[in-house]
């Protein structure tokens, strides 16, 4: 039977299978974005401004989406525990600021300080996920939530003293949002920034993402990266081939956590603020649905998925409010975003994947 299939893989069939693997929901979302792009000038929105917005949002979020890749590759599923990595990033950011670094140095130091936290948290998180193989996604979600709420207490209790970070009246406890002006606000975006009319391209941020994406791509081409993919594809095969499955999974979790930490720092430099307390809660689901929209599944993801997904998702998110508001004076973009992003995750969860144990 399969011999038959082997014989005739014409280009039409390939096209059909490409369509099938792309999936209906993605088609709809891509179609929606095209419609939005066409509609934007028609309803009087500045087209290039829209494009700038999309690129900007892409540059903020892409690293967070990239953080999904390692864990998907090693078969740990979608990293709903992204907030844990984000917390490492937040620790890096706040400590860097507290230590008095400013300008570009504060960004470099934030990354450096966030790294050991990310590794430490990643190891703990990876250890836990190795104990509960098969139930990763649900537990990851709640590990994320617990850690966020735990850190809420810590932000209040840790001895931060820098006046522009803590509540003025009490002198202790971090503020919910901390402005990054004078620190690393737009530090990457301003680097080699290109302006053509109303189109602004944050070259530095894009290059930074490209650099990380390249590293990820390169890693997946090394011996270890290959082993990680094999673990995700078939853990028993990997075990039989002498791979330490748990170690590979752990590595992927650490990588994912670290990328999330870097991701939030990149996000902050674009956004201009550090958001603390309950803010990291909101971060996992958009990243998860972005990579799924990009064509990834629960156990397969590539760099291309990250790029396509982030563009599509952020495109929808940034363009719908303006276009909708201009067109029908009813801003249903937020609701639309919820339906689209969660619908995408649901779609991915209901796809049958090869049963593995």
């Amino acid at each position, binding site marked *: 039977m399969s011999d038959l299939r082997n014989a005739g893989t014409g280009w039409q069939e390939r096209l059909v299978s490409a369509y099938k693997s792309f999936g209906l929901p993605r088609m709809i979302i891509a179609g929606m974005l095209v419609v939005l792009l066409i509609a934007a000038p028609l309803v009087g929105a500045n087209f290039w401004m829209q494009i700038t917005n999309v690129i900007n949002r892409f540059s903020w979020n892409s690293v967070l989406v990239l953080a999904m890749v390692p864990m998907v590759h090693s078969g740990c599923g979608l990293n709903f525990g992204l907030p844990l990595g984000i917390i490492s990033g937040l620790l890096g950011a706040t400590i860097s600021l507290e230590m008095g670094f400013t300008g570009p140095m504060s960004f470099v130091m934030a990354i450096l300080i966030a790294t050991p936290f990310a590794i430490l948290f990643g190891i703990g998180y990876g250890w836990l996920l190795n104990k509960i193989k098969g139930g990763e996604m649900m537990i990851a979600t709640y590990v994320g939530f617990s850690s966020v*709420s735990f850190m*809420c207490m810590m932000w209040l209790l840790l001895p931060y003293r820098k006046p522009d970070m803590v509540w003025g009246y009490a002198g202790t406890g971090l503020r*919910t949002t901390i402005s990054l002006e004078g620190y690393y606000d737009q530090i990457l975006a301003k680097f080699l920034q290109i302006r053509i009319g109303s189109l602004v391209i944050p070259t530095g941020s894009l290059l930074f993402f490209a650099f990380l994406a390249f590293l990820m791509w390169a890693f997946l081409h090394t011996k270890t990266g290959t082993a990680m993919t094999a673990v995700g594809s078939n853990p028993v095969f990997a075990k039989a081939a002498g791979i330490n499955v748990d170690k590979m999974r752990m590595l992927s979790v650490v990588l994912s956590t670290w990328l999330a930490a870097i991701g939030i720092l990149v996000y902050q430099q674009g956004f201009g603020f550090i958001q603390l*307390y*309950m803010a990291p*809660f*909101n971060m996992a*689901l958009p990243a998860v649905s972005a990579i799924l929209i990009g064509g990834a599944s629960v156990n397969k993801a590539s760099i291309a998925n990250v790029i396509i997904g982030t563009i599509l998702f952020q495109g929808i998110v940034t363009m719908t409010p303006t276009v909708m508001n201009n067109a029908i004076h009813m801003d249903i973009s937020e609701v639309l975003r*919820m339906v689209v992003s969660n619908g995408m995750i649901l779609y991915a969860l209901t796809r049958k994947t090869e049963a593995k144990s």
Partner: protein
Amino acid sequence: MRRILFRAGTIVLLIAIAVCMMIIGRGHTIYFDNKTLEYEGTKYEAVRRINVNVNGEQVAKLSKKERGMATFTGQKFSFDIEIIREKNGPSEMRTFNIEVPYTMDGIVVNLIGMIEGLPQDAWLKEFIPAPVVEEEDEEIIIDEFDIPADAREPGTVPAQEPDTETASES
């Protein structure tokens, strides 16, 4: 067949209960006025004091030009009033039954008109609340996760748990 019958019966029963509830549970607000009333050229003066009782409970004590309020559910409403025309004078008891149209949320009755036995259109009016000028749209936060910043139990507004609040301050 038997089952379909039973099922249909259950659904009809539920709908019947629902309809019943809609009738007996329909809430109305009734406002009592002790105000001077002009009807077909005749002027009816407000009295010194009227006490309004619903089910034996006093809901309003109305001096001249005052308005009282009561709420009730259903379409039929009965209340007693005690009329005192002079200070320390004798009181006069009257009982009234009125029917309220289903569609009206609130009605205003002029007690004077009722006491004088005028026709219904003289003393019954629909209560139309004065349009409140509101400031711009209130912000609807429909954030996906919607953890309130102070992370209370959902919907528990502090005002409703005064005990907890005061206790925590002490």
